[in-house]
């Protein structure tokens, strides 16, 4: 199956799922991480601890939780999402969202706290102030994005459990590698592994280039 249409389909599906999951994690994690970094509310410290714990969530535990939720007899069974790419995306968002949130909060907390006073003192609205802080922390925020992408493109346990590794439907690079290894097709598994590494490298290379261009400036 090396370098044929099926490999192409698996690769594209892997990229689509991981990109969407990373994008959603960023969409939720960036504002939530900002709230945790800048906000003052009673449960802030507790939530930050939860997020930091979530950064090390075992993907199989996430897979188990999402599978139970989406199982036909589960609370969200009527949605019929189990063994679909959407189920994988849900699981991957749960895995990468704490990573993006935690690193966003850490990046913003590392900025000089007087920067907020300075921005307000120049007439920035709250939204403008936050935008400027994101801009100031763009290098670590890009690192957060890379870490979020890395956590989902390499993930296998949850994808297997909620996606089912169904050919042409939910099979992604990591689950395909597991399958081929199980069948003893080490050559195919190695080829897919190299492909996964190349894709991961190319995406991170692009993000690193953007990050370091910012650093050089």
């Amino acid at each position: 199956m090396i370098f044929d249409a099926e490999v192409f389909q698996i690769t594209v599906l892997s990229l689509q799922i991981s990109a969407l999951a990373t994008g959603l994690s960023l969409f939720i994690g960036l504002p939530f991480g900002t709230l945790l970094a800048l906000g003052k509310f009673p449960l802030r410290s507790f939530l930050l601890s939860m997020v930091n714990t979530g950064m090390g969530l075992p993907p199989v535990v996430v897979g188990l939780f999402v599978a139970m939720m989406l199982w036909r007899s589960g609370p969200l069974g009527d949605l019929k999402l189990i063994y679909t790419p959407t189920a994988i995306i849900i699981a991957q968002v749960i895995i990468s969202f704490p990573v993006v949130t935690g690193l966003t909060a850490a990046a913003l907390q590392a900025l000089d706290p007087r920067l907020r006073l300075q921005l307000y003192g120049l007439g920035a609205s709250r939204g403008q102030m936050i935008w400027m802080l994101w801009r100031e922390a763009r290098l670590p925020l890009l690192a957060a994005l890379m870490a979020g992408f890395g956590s989902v493109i390499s993930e296998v346990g949850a994808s297997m459990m909620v996606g089912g590794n169904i050919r042409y439907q939910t099979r992604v690079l990591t689950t395909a590698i597991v399958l081929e290894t199980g069948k003893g097709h080490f050559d195919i598994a190695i080829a897919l592994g190299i492909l996964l590494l190349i894709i991961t490298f190319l995406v991170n290379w692009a993000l690193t280039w953007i990050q370091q261009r910012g650093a050089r400036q």
Partner: protein
Amino acid sequence: MSKQKRFTTEATESTEKNKEENSVASVRSVVENSTIPLVEIRDLLVRRGEHPALELEYLSIEKGEVLAIVGPNGAGKSTLLLTLARLLKSEKGEIIFKGQKAANDSDTTYRRRIALVLQDPLLFDTSVFENVASGLKFRGIGKDEIKRRVELWLERLGVAHLSKRRAGQLSGGEAQRVSLARALVLEPELLLLDEPFSALDPPTRARILDDLKRLLAEIQTTTVFVTHDLPEAKKMAERIAVIIGNCLRQAGKPDEVFSYPADNEVSAFFSEPLY
């Protein structure tokens, strides 16, 4: 006698005068009258944590004047400045801006009438031009106007040649000049300076002070200048307010304040060798 009672004659008289005014409404009716101070602070109490950080019965800031706030470290000088910028909330009291309660405006609306320069330049990680343009962009001003005003103020502060340079590549003096340009380009009604030159070496500091004094005299921007350096205050300000122990102790013209300290603590502060 409590600390609050130990104000200067000027401060006490001003308070009495204001008590005689009928209401804020009557003040509003004469807003345009040039005798109305730009800012009046009344019965202010600001807490930082559980302890009072500033108690101030009355202080006025006249339009066009440079008012220096002096006092030892931790006295409450910066608290006053941050409260004036509405970056700290007061527990009680009010700020009257051009005859109207400042609280009537939203924080952002109010802050767009002022500009703040802190002890460190805190420049943004971008070019000098973009730094100076930032406040104008917050206000939604057009590109052509931004370009005109930024170039003008970079020129006035003597840093036009640094326009394209990254903020991180500037020396301390250059960065503080850019920080001043970033505030002055906004043409604020009230300029707030919080010990902006304390981290600079003496020659650089002296040059910037000279330039700033000349510029402020030229543009007549009302300025509140926090410092613990008395010669600096005397050089820059038309009036001096002394804050010690989180209370305003004295306010007046520099010669009056230095010649006739309101109490022993003010006198001791003036004679402190560090200052």
